């Protein structure tokens, strides 16, 4: 990374200025040339073996096979008489023992979920409906796969990514996963084994007992709620705990479990309800750990086996290394950094194999791995370059993780992402900065090996050292979208405020990290003992921190209020008609709260049942072994063995469109009385005179086409568009945000209980639901048209409506008390030239801090580099809000003619990092 100025020029400049009594601090960040530290890593490229492995990933198809599910299901059937937790543990244990290990030449970090470089597998025990519905289709597809065309094989087969359609002997499932046609009958057979028995089916059978179930069904059909919780992604959006194997190793853990089992066998110890369950749990841990040990040893054996087939001395050395490492970590506490990071890879993989999950975050592993890093470096056992290589390998391995979740979820909400969130920064229990040298290298690996996982977050605190902050800002500038920036203090405020009901202290609150993309999740401090030295590390200790009520569409509820509970799009009367005249804003707001409450209520109850079925029949055991305090208490997740159990929440979407709609209605109908509510209804029903988005098959706002005669809505549309908008530091809009949040976070959410008897809280990030739920929503009173996407995140302004610059947006976003919400999400686009060079990095860091300091949770950036600008050239309509800032001059990209666009692109590339 070099600025335009070379060293000799810098020197000349410094001399001239020094003569005039002006230090370089005016310009180059306070460092005169003699003191400028030559960058240690000026080349942002990954190590050669990593580059090869990442290239391979890019050319690997998302694959699935039936091996793991087969063994799971066969063993599950064999032990049908057993206590459920043991039955499941045994099934998992055998599956791990028997599944085929795969090591790719060149890897140093190993372990795969399925026998592919990039694989996953279905879990019909959660939901088999998709396969049942598609059975005939899948069968037919597999039969059609008789002959294979060489062309197909070489073109599609050689490529990577999703298997969007069948080819050769590969059948496409859900347009994403490829399965060998020979295995399709086995897939269907296993699915059928779970017919009416899966968590989905059983959950559905029981949730119908909820009196308001019919309402829930209608809410799902009309997309007021995005998807179910209990069987889709029952785990994830939480922070891992790697503590126990890292501290004890598996042999010692087994020994401890056996001792504990002996202690509790037959004893209730005062707990007449679940005291006896501890015996079954410990025995389950034992049998499962034994299976896991065999799995790890299979990898060691595989390395040795592959060594026989190659002459390449480097590969032979690699395989020896892998063999020795896996042989050790199958039994003992990791002794070196390499063994520790391998252990992390091992544990992360096995956790992912137990359930359909997304958002299983590694957490603060720079702090978790620090003991080994520090000691290896001090003893000269490893160099920073070797550490960097391992961190890059870890990035590629994590990117290879696929998730095979319920059909509606994978392509929709997740868009294929698995959200393994790695957090850096934060503080220790004494409030001191927890950032360390290893975390610096982790960020650097994120720059040399940019790839989707693990995604990075920084828990920024006032005490985080400035050079570390600037390193993270440099990483943000690369344009991968990470790290996301979180306010450490706000995170602590939320965590402590919410979990103090469960006895959390301030010290403990400081150990938190981010689960999934933005789900602040609590943890605890644990002590690692390594060679006589003690280190305190954080360990995730909570249930999944985004389950319960998934994504309520706020604007859609407003639509229900306006239309007496009726959804025009599906012709369904969703809510009981309120029949109120809505003569004042207060009346409208009361009905809104009522409909919203009914929505939360029915969804909460139904999802509680789904989760209850899950915890009774499909409880997680692996995480229960590894998360505090399960081993201490002898209880798995279902029996509230985790330290923090009040993690269920309500996710919302489209907040800003709702706020803007309230502002428009309040102004135009109630204050100025320019229009009646009927006028608004009429305009919305007629989409402000435009065709519906699905009639013209485009969901982009700029493409919407006006109907003949639509002009009569011009005036009202214009008035709605010009009504006060959030993001401009305008109290006339922002007051509705404050009103909403006060009710949503402090009144609504805490009034509902999860199945664990603990209150809910709010979660306000949209993932990608703002597109899907936008599709199902009519036009809104803020002037937005039918079917078009909502404002993203939760605090981003609706595109094009924030007119007064970033600071006005920040002001609007911090008008409400964010500490009662698990998160808020602000996505911002920024042009690389505005943050160019060393000064630019500082400006970016200050911009971020200025926002987070004011009581905001989060901000992340899309740095619009030349790649983005090229895309914007091809699809200008999707980039209408893209701004170009060059030397104090701002212009919308879409307003610049192509020649000048080319100029800006060229300039950006030339001057890019």
């Amino acid at each position: 990374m070099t600025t335009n100025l070379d060293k000799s020029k810098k020197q000349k400049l410094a001399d001239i200025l020094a003569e005039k009594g002006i230090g370089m601090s005016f310009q180059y960040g306070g460092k005169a040339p003699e003191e400028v530290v030559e960058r240690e890593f000026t080349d942002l490229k990954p190590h050669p073996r990593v580059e090869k492995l990442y290239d391979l990933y890019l050319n690997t198809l998302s694959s699935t096979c039936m091996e793991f599910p087969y063994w799971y299901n066969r063993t599950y059937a064999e032990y049908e008489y057993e206590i459920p937790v043991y039955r499941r543990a045994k099934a998992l244990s055998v599956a791990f023992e028997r599944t085929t290990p795969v090591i790719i030449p060149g890897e140093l970090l190993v372990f795969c979920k399925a026998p592919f470089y990039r694989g996953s597998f279905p879990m019909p025990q959660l939901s088999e409906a998709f396969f049942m519905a598609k059975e005939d289709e899948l069968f037919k597809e597999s039969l059609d796969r008789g002959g294979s065309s060489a062309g197909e094989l070489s073109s599609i087969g050689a490529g990577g990514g999703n298997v969007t359609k069948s080819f050769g002997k590969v059948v496409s499932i859900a347009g994403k996963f490829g399965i060998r046609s020979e295995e399709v009958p086995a897939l269907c057979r296993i699915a059928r084994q779970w017919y009416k028995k899966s968590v989905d089916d059983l959950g559905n059978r029981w949730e119908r007992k909820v009196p308001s179930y019919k309402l829930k069904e209608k809410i799902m059909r009309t997309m007021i709620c995005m998807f179910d919780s209990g069987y889709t992604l029952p785990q994830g959006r939480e922070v891992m705990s790697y503590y126990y194997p890292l501290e004890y190793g598996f042999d010692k853990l087994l020994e401890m479990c056996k001792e504990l089992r002996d202690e509790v066998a037959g004893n209730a110890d005062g707990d007449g309800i679940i005291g006896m369950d501890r015996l079954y749990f410990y025995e389950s841990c034992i049998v499962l750990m034994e299976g896991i040990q065999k799995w790890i040893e299979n990898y060691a054996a595989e390395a040795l086996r592959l060594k026989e087939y190659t002459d390449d001395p480097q590969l032979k050395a690699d395989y020896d290394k892998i063999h020795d490492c896996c042989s050790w970590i199958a039994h003992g506490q990791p002794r070196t950094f390499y063994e520790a990071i391998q252990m992390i890879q091992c544990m992360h993989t096995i956790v992912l194999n137990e359930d359909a999950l997304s958002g299983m975050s590694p957490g603060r592993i720079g702090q978790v791995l620090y003991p080994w890093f520090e000691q290896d470096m001090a003893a000269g056992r490893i160099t920073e370059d070797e550490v960097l290589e391992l961190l890059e390998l870890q990035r590629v391995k994590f990117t290879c993780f696929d998730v095979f979740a319920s059909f509606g979820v994978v392509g929709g909400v997740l868009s294929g992402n698995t959200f393994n969130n790695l957090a850096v920064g934060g503080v220790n229990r004494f409030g001191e900065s927890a950032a360390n040298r290893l975390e610096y290298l982790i960020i650097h690996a994120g720059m040399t090996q940019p790839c989707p996982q693990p995604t990075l977050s920084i828990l920024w605190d006032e005490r985080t050292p400035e050079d570390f902050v600037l390193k993270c800002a440099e990483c943000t500038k690369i344009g991968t979208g990470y790290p996301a920036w979180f306010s450490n203090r706000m995170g602590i405020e939320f965590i402590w405020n919410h979990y103090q009901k469960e006895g959390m202290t301030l010290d403990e609150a400081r150990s938190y990290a981010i689960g999934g993309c933005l789900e602040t999740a609590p943890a605890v401090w644990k002590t690692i003992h390594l060679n006589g030295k003690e280190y305190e590390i954080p360990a995730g200790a909570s249930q999944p921190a985004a389950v319960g009520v998934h994504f309520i569409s706020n604007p859609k509820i407003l639509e229900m209020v306006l239309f007496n509970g009726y959804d025009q799009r599906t012709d369904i009367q969703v809510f009981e008609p309120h029949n109120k005249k809505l003569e004042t804003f207060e009346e409208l707001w009361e009905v809104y709260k009522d409909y919203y409450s009914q929505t939360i209520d029915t969804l909460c109850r139904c999802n509680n049942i789904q989760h209850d079925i899950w915890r009774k029949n499909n409880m997680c055991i692996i995480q229960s072994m590894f998360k505090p305090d399960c081993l201490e208490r002898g209880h798995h997740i279902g029996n509230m063995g985790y330290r923090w159990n009040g993690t269920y929440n309500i996710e919302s979407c489209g907040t800003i469109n709702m706020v803007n709609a309230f502002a428009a209605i309040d102004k135009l109908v109630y204050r100025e009385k320019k229009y009646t509510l009927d006028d608004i209804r009429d305009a919305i029903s007629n989409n402000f005179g435009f065709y519906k988005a699905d009639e013209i098959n485009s969901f982009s706002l700029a493409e919407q086409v006006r109907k003949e005669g639509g002009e009569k809505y011009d005036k009202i549309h214009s008035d709605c568009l010009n009504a006060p908008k959030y993001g401009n530091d305008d109290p006339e809009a922002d007051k509705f945000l404050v009103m909403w949040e006060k009710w949503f976070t402090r009144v609504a959410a805490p009034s509902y209980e999860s199945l664990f008897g603990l209150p809910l809280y709010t979660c306000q990030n949209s993932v990608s639901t703002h597109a899907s739920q936008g599709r199902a929503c009519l036009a809104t009173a803020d002037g937005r048209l039918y079917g078009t996407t909502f404002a993203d995140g939760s605090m981003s302004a609706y595109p094009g409506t924030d007119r007064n610059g970033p600071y006005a947006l920040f002001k609007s976003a911090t008008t409400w008390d964010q500490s009662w919400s698990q998160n808020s999400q602000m996505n911002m686009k920024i042009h690389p030239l505005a943050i160019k060079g060393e000064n630019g990095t500082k400006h970016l860091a200050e911009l971020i801090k200025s926002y987070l300091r004011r009581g905001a949770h989060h901000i992340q950036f899309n740095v619009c580099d030349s790649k983005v600008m090229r895309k914007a050239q091809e699809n200008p309509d999707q980039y209408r809000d893209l701004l170009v800032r060059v030397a104090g001059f701002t212009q919308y990209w879409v307003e610049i003619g192509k020649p000048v666009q080319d100029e800006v692109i060229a300039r950006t590339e030339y001057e890019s990092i």
Partner: protein
Amino acid sequence: MEKHSDCKHFISVDCAKGLCAWTNQMVVIDTPPCPRFEALPKCKICSNYHPDKDNMGTCTGLPDKSFWAYDEMIARNCPGFKANA
């Protein structure tokens, strides 16, 4: 007809291809293997496996006495695997 993924020296990458452990080169699964082919234990070549139709059959080699299985399942770590004579 044998394919690459039936061979011991095949390193699985995805559902269409993999690497040959000998050469470290990419091979497409559904192409004829080379003379160094060595059969990978799979149900379809196990004497405890009794094929039926649709690439599935019955396994009698494990303590549960009898359970359905499928041709292509890899049996390297199966305690009941016994190669066909």
